[in-house]
Every structure is written in structure tokens, then in C-alpha cells.
């Protein structure tokens, strides 16, 4: 099975198959893994003798809206955290023919709050780390920054608007 993953604004392809040991290929590099789900969302993976414990969760604050063809997970392996978006291989029709698009990005509100300022307009080119929207929450003003370079395709909120956690504020491509 092919899966398209997005991590840190970059697309990766993971192919997985097998019973017992899983035959995997990540971005063309092959490896074998034996996986056991030792508790809900906790995987013990043995890969060439190396032992990894991976905790997978659906984070609040970085959630995608339901019904989408992709879902983002937080995975922690031996103290290191990854945010990984997995695209549904069925909806993306196998994912093989897809072009790798850099920087496609939904900007979401990490928590409920109020939009104080919109810092980038539609059509505007933004750099990685550039401030996009300021949301006030828990009595702090927090600037939401772009995770990758791109162009603002759509701005979905206006200043003063209350937003829910996970709500999409902006689309960047």
C-alpha cells in the first residue's frame, strides 16, 4: 500500500506490505519492520534489531476538519516529536500519480480565540516563519506563523472574528 505523508511541509511516500515482518519503503529506501501495538496508539517497532516505541495521537490544536482526505498525527519516538499528515490512499487513488507539492498548508487556529490581526493577504507570497494571523487566547496574543514558504491562496477570517480550535484561517500553496 502507498501512503503519502506530509511532514514539515514536505511530501514523503511510504509503501508498506506484508504479514509478520512488514516490508517498507520510505522515499525509495527499503527497510523491514516488525510492529506490535502494545497499547492503544503505542507501537513497538523492531527495525533491523533497533527498538523504537512510537506514541501516536491526534493532537488538538493541529487537527484537520473531519471529512478530509488527510489526517495529521503527532508521533513521539524516544523523546522526539513529529507532526505527520497521512493522506488517505483510497481517496487519493493510490497516491502514486500525485505530483509532490511543496508547502501546501492549511493554517488553523491552535485553540479557541479571537482574530486580532490578519498579517498576509490573498495572493501574497509568504516566507517560512512569516507571521500570518494574530489570535488572542488565554489572555495572550499569539502570532501564527507560516510553516513553509508559499502563496496565500485564501484568507478565511477577518479581524475581530471569534474562531474555534482547529478552524482553518488561511490556505497557503
Amino acid at each position, binding site marked *: *500500500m502507498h501512503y503519502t505523508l506530509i511532514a514539515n511541509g514536505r511530501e514523503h511516500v511510504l509503501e508498506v506490505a506484508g504479514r509478520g515482518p512488514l516490508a517498507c519503503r520510505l522515499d525509495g529506501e*527499503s527497510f523491514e519492520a516488525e510492529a506490535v501495538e502494545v497499547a492503544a496508539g503505542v507501537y513497538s517497532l523492531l527495525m533491523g534489531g533497533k527498538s523504537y516505541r512510537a506514541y501516536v495521537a491526534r493532537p488538538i490544536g493541529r487537527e484537520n476538519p473531519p471529512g478530509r482526505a488527510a489526517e495529521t498525527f503527532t508521533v513521539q519516538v524516544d*523523546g*522526539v516529536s513529529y507532526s505527520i499528515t497521512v493522506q488517505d490512499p483510497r481517496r487519493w487513488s493510490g497516491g502514486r500519480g500525485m505530483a509532490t507539492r511543496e508547502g501546501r498548508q492549511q493554517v488553523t487556529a491552535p485553540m479557541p480565540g479571537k482574530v486580532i490581526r490578519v498579517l498576509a493577504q490573498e495572493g501574497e507570497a509568504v516566507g517560512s516563519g512569516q507571521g500570518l494571523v494574530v489570535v488572542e*487566547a488565554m489572555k495572550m496574543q499569539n502570532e501564527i506563523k507560516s510553516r513553509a514558504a508559499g502563496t496565500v491562496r485564501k484568507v478565511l477570517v477577518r479581524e475581530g472574528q471569534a474562531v474555534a480550535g482547529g478552524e482553518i484561517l488561511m490556505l497557503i500553496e
Partner: protein
Amino acid sequence: MFSKVLVANRGEIAVRVMRACREMGIRTVAVYSEADRACLHVLKAEEAYPIGPAPAAESYLRIDKILETARKAGAEAIHPGYGFLSENAELARACEQAGIVFIGPSAEAMEKMGSKTSARRLAERAGVPLVPGTTRALASPEEAQRVAASVGYPVMVKAAAGGGGKGLRLVRSADEMPAAFRDARSEAENAFGDSDVYIEKYLEKPRHIEIQILGDRHGHVIHLGERECSIQRRHQKVMEESPSPLLDEAMRQRMGEAAVKLAREAGYYNAGTMEFLVDAQKNFYFLEMNTRLQVEHPVTEAVTGLDLVKMQILVAAGEPLPLRQEEIQLRGAALECRIYAEDPGNNFFPCPGRITALEAPAGPGVRDDSGVYAGWTVPVEYDPLLSKLIAWGADRQEALRRMRRALDEYYIGGIQTNLSFFRRILCDPDFLEGRLDTGLIDRLLATSPSEDSKQDGRWKAAALAAVLFAARQEGRVEAGSGGVSLPTRWGRDGREQLLRRLPLPRK
């Protein structure tokens, strides 16, 4: 000794205080706001009573409701924790009138030391070195400019009633003064209901080092060594340690004696902390006093072997300190990390929400003072502190390595936390070698985290785990006792999509 104590706080510090009470055989009474019915301190207490709606001003800050609850429950004493009402002299007075013991200093000592200008005057009288500046509130921007000129720019304009980084302005030249003076006053008025501001010389790259003191109602005051609190972000402590890598025994003694002298001058009893700034030449200057238990008290507990909350309770019950200064010995070194629900990958944006899974570190030398549990939802209404992780070692290096090990073991699922950020700090060469100052974190944040995390097997493991988790939710994997395997056909949607076996070489 008291038989019942009300804890006028929430979260980890309320749990911490209750643990001490339990070990002393004292019954504990929790109070909780509407947002906190399921908060850990309610579960840990032997009694629990609601005191109002979620906003602190309508619950945890309501002296009347807290006293009424104490009376109703028959509590003989109130422990305020830190924050909320812990430095509110009105509560101390109201307790006295109600015949309930306030586990803290007298209202008078609290007022003397709580106002920064008044504390500076006391320090001056006690002969304790002060950061150059004023010991009185300033009347006008012009007066501020005169003072600033005499101590030399840059200076800090600070709220006399301040705390938590509010009502603070850095002023680098005379023309910046009028605006800074105005802003600091208005922020102070909003935050503390007191617009008084004063001036202190701004020290470049200072270290924040504080001395823990303990005083009883019989005039005995001792100190328990120092804590290094230079690792700060936005004027908030993030990591603390004891002893400070900077101090030697002689300097510790000098600072300790200054702190004890000042506490005596104020007639102070209870646990308390004298904060000092230390400059590059190792000169120390009294900054302010915290007239309560500190968040970071566990590092002192780890190296002294004392339970500070029990000491507070003993002293409040009128007992003499059970220790003399010469019996205090520091053993080894301890560090503390403040684990917050905030996203270091997103400008430390606070991240309340439901904790779906929790695995706390354990084993030798590790202490986790947590206020949360799996299944609980971190509310949006309060401070996002989840837990304090403390590591002790026979020396600083062992403590550091233990902390790193403990951080690797820690897992908090469902919300973002700053755990990964501590891992970065613990790899910083300046930090490892004890070259600490309040600018360390900003310098660290200016560099981007190393990207080598994608180089090793962890990244592959993470990618695979994400896929297995996603596939499991779609019902596409079998998780039998022999491990996870991908079936040859998708069962759920009935599509006849055969799994392609990859022609992979076996290792």
C-alpha cells in the same frame, strides 16, 4: 498540629500541598471552580467544595468564599500555594480575624516585602546590596529621567507591586522614558490596581539567583542555599537548578547571610525567597522577595532533603524550626523543568485540551510533581502548567543526564507541550557548561533546531507508526498477538484491492 487544612489553590501545587498534609496526618480540603470539578486536586483531597464560576476573580480569588468554605469544613488553617491569593495580605488579615491560621507570613511582613519599593528600603537599611535605582515610587517622567541619568542608562522602569513580567519596561535612553513611564504605569494599574513605578539599573546578561529562607514565629531564620533561575523566556522562569553552577561556598554564605538579615529585618516567618541579580563580576544585588512558596521549591528539597511544605505547616502551627543553619547540607544537584501545555513549534502558543495519554518518567533520581492525568482536559481558564519534572544527581552532570533520560521517557498525548524544547536546552553547550544568563533561551530560539532528526531510524519509525495508526482506524490492519499485519484485502469497504507485495531484499 492542625487536623484539617484548606488548600486555596488548584492543580499541581494544590496536589503538592495535599501530599505533605497526608504525610503529616492532616485532612485536606479542596476548593474548586466550575471548570475544575474533575481537576486532580479535587480527586486527591479528602473533602472538596465548589467556590464559583471558572474565572479566578469569581472563585480562587474570592476571599469571602474561601473563608466561608474553611469555616463550613472546619479547617483550622489555609495554605494558599503560589499565585492566586498567596501574596494577598488581605487574606492573611481576614484569616486572622476569622481565627483561621494563614500558612504564610504575617500580613505586615507580606506588605513590607511585597511592595518592591518598600522591600528595597528595608534592604538598604539591612545593608544588603541593591540594584542601583530608587527605593520610592516616582512622581513623573522627569523625575524618572533624573534618576536614570544618575544611575546610567539602560534602566528598567518597574511596577512596585509587580510580578510575572507585567508593568516592566526597558529604557535605553532619555527620550524613550516618557512613553515607557506612561506604559508601565498603566499596565501596573491594570494588572495590580497600583500604578506606582520605580527605576532600577538594567544589568546586561544578569543571572537570576535566589536564596530560599525559612523563618519561624520565634525569630529563627535560616537559609537553604540558592536556586539558579537564569533560564527564562519573556521574564518567566522555565528551568531552575540548585546549586547554581556559579556559586562557591563562600559566595553562597554571603548571599545566604544577606537574605537571612533581610528576612529578620522584616520580621518574616514562613518559607520565602530573596531574588538577586548577579552580574558578570559576581556582584549580587537584591531584586525582590517572594513571600510564599515558589514554583521551583522542589530543587531545594532535592538537595537539602527537607520538605518545605511541611516546614511551612510546622511554622504556621507555631512550632520552632527543627533545624539549625549548621545542620543544612546540600547534597548533589537538582534541576527542574516546568512542563507547560504550549507549542514550542508554534511560538509557544498555549495548547489546552484533552490529555489522551500520559506516561510519566520514573526510576532513580526523578520526581514528577504533576497536576494532570490521562483523560483530563486542560482548561483554557488557568495557567498552562501541567507538571514540574525534577531530576537529582550526585553532581550537575548526573542531574543533567537524568533529566534528559526523564524527558525522553515523558509522553503527554493529545496536546502540545514544551517537552521537546527542554531537550533542546539540554543540548545547548552554554547550558551544559553552566554559562547561564537570562538571554540564553532567546539566543537558542534564534537558531533553528537541528534537522538531523530525519536522519535516523526514529523518523522511519514515526512515519510507519502514523500509517499503522491511520490504517487501524480505517479497519485495515489486524493487530493480533503476533503483531500488526496488513491484510491482503481491505475488509471494510469491500473493495477488492489486492495488496501488492514489494520485492524487497531481506536484510
